[in-house]
């Protein structure tokens, strides 16, 4: 039997302190928490930085380090610093060192880095060992070369190797969401289907319970299944909340692909042990070829955005033609004055209040009170994007609907009304890479931090 304590769906999201204490008192074998995902977009991976504030991360990580010391078991985090790039692992290691010194702790930390050298990925592409997943973008060597970060998603083998160093704390770069939870049960010989399924249910913390914000859950894995119990007193896991969790962020609610195989929950059975705990059996692990999924991000331009608000009724009711005219005039002026080729940059105006969320898919047509004008300029360099923003600015302030009318003035919320967004990143990999040795593509190191 292996007992895994999951404090929250992600470090930085917060959790119920009393529930964490209860979980620690239950003597878990390991404390495991996720540190990120791709969900916030490609910029974090592209830059190798965390989405959450350093201050929030440090507060919560300190509490988890204290909980770990009290429980006397390993603490593992996967996808450290939102994206799991090597720089994000170093960032969390740095925070860990600070806390250890401040708390007078002496801890052994294992770092598992997932960053992939471009040469390795290009060799895999050339050698036919890189395989596109459904809806993958086209890939070539030039795109791999353009990536600022490429990471591979580690599975249980790599996390288990990190735990095998005897580390008190494992800071892992990109892992699958489930691997940090499934690793110890798999290593200890608990049912593999249960290990992966329980890990999937648990990776979002208490999201699979009636009180998602309470965060803390405990999962017991054994030879035939797993049992999930929320640690917040008022939270319950029910067969419905647990089975419905396979829907979440999964394109297929029954199959989950992982390094070295897939989980099949088609025949899983969910039983309420009481009003708060659910027992799950019948989940199946199907071994397959050993592959790891890759994620990569590259810079595709630099952006300036401008924001204005149109309130005047006549302009609001003609805002589409107005916006199309501004787009065309700004485009012409960027070509004429900055000398950019017309296909080297883009000018887009999104109408907030009309269809900014859905674009062409929007099917409601109502005239709003006011419309936010979001001008988005994308250019090859940051300097060009800044210049283009200054060309856009006067149009957002004063552009008339027709030539023969008094000059209008729209609401600018800021001075200046345009803002430099920096680099625009794109995800450019949705591929798996074959590995003969699961550990070959990852870097495992140990560090003694703090002082006795």
């Amino acid at each position, binding site marked *: 039997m292996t007992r895994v304590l999951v404090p929250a769906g992600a470090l930085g999201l917060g959790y119920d302190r009393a529930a964490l204490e209860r979980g620690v008192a239950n003597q878990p074998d390991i404390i495991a928490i996720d540190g990120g995902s791709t969900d916030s*977009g*490609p910029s974090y991976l592209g830059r190798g930085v965390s989405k959450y504030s350093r201050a929030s991360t440090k507060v919560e990580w300190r509490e988890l380090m204290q909980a770990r010391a009290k429980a006397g078991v390993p603490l593992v985090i996967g996808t450290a610093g939102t994206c799991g790039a090597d720089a994000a692992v170093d960032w969390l290691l740095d925070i860990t060192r600070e806390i250890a010194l401040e708390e007078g702790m002496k801890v052994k930390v294992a770092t598992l880095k997932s960053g992939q050298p471009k040469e390795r990925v290009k060799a895999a592409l050339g050698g036919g060992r890189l395989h596109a997943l459904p809806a993958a973008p086209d890939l070539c060597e030039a795109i791999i070369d353009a990536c600022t970060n490429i990471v591979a998603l580690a599975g249980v083998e790599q996390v288990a190797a990190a735990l095998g160093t005897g580390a008190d704390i494992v800071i892992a770069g990109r892992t699958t969401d489930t691997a940090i939870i499934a690793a110890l049960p798999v290593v200890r010989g608990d049912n593999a289907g249960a290990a992966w399924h329980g890990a999937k249910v648990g990776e979002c913390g208490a999201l699979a319970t009636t009180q998602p914000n309470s965060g803390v859950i405990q999962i017991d894995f054994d030879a035939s299944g797993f049992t999930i119990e929320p640690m917040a007193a008022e939270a319950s896991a029910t067969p419905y909340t647990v089975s419905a969790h396979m*829907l979440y*962020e999964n*394109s297929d609610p029954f199959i989950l692909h992982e390094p070295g195989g897939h989980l099949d929950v088609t025949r899983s059975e969910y039983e309420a042990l009481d009003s708060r705990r659910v027992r799950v059996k019948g989940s199946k692990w199907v071994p397959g070829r050993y592959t790891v999924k890759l994620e990569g991000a590259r810079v595709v331009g630099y952006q300036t955005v401008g924001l204005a608000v149109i309130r005047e009724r006549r302009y609001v009711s003609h805002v589409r033609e107005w916006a199309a005219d501004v787009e065309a005039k700004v485009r012409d002026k960027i070509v004429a004055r900055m000398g950019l080729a017309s296909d080297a940059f883009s000018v887009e105006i999104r109408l907030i209040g009309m269809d900014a*969320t859905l674009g062409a898919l929007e099917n409601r047509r109502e005239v709003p009170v006011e419309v936010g004008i979001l001008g988005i300029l994308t250019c090859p360099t940051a300097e060009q994007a800044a210049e283009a923003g200054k060309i856009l600015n006067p149009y957002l302030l004063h552009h008339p609907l027709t030539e023969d009318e008094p000059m209008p003035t729209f609401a600018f919320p800021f001075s200046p009304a345009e803002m430099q967004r920096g680099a625009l990143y794109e995800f450019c990999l949705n591929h798996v890479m074959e590995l003969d040795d699961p550990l070959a593509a990852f870097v495992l190191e140990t560090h003694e931090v703090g002082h006795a």
Partner: protein
Amino acid sequence: MPELGSLVSKVRSKNAGPFWLTVDIFCDDPATFARVRDGLQDADVARLFGVERQLLKRFDIPSLNVVKFSVPRPVVQGMRADRDMHGAGWACLLEEFQIE
């Protein structure tokens, strides 16, 4: 005809990784589930989301009273033309769909 959102307890859309979008329609009871399952055609959903029908994956899950659709994201998450980083807005298209 009522809007689908007025019949069900929740419609949720979310990224399933950067390249896929998944939408879950949570019905409260088997009767509503059957109504949604029978009243919502694949072609309707493909048209609402602007994707080819053959690319649509559909799961009717009676044990949860859930109808689920997954589609390749019309625009990959975070690309210049993406308008909704987490994909939450697509749910509105189904909520407002008029169903028999």
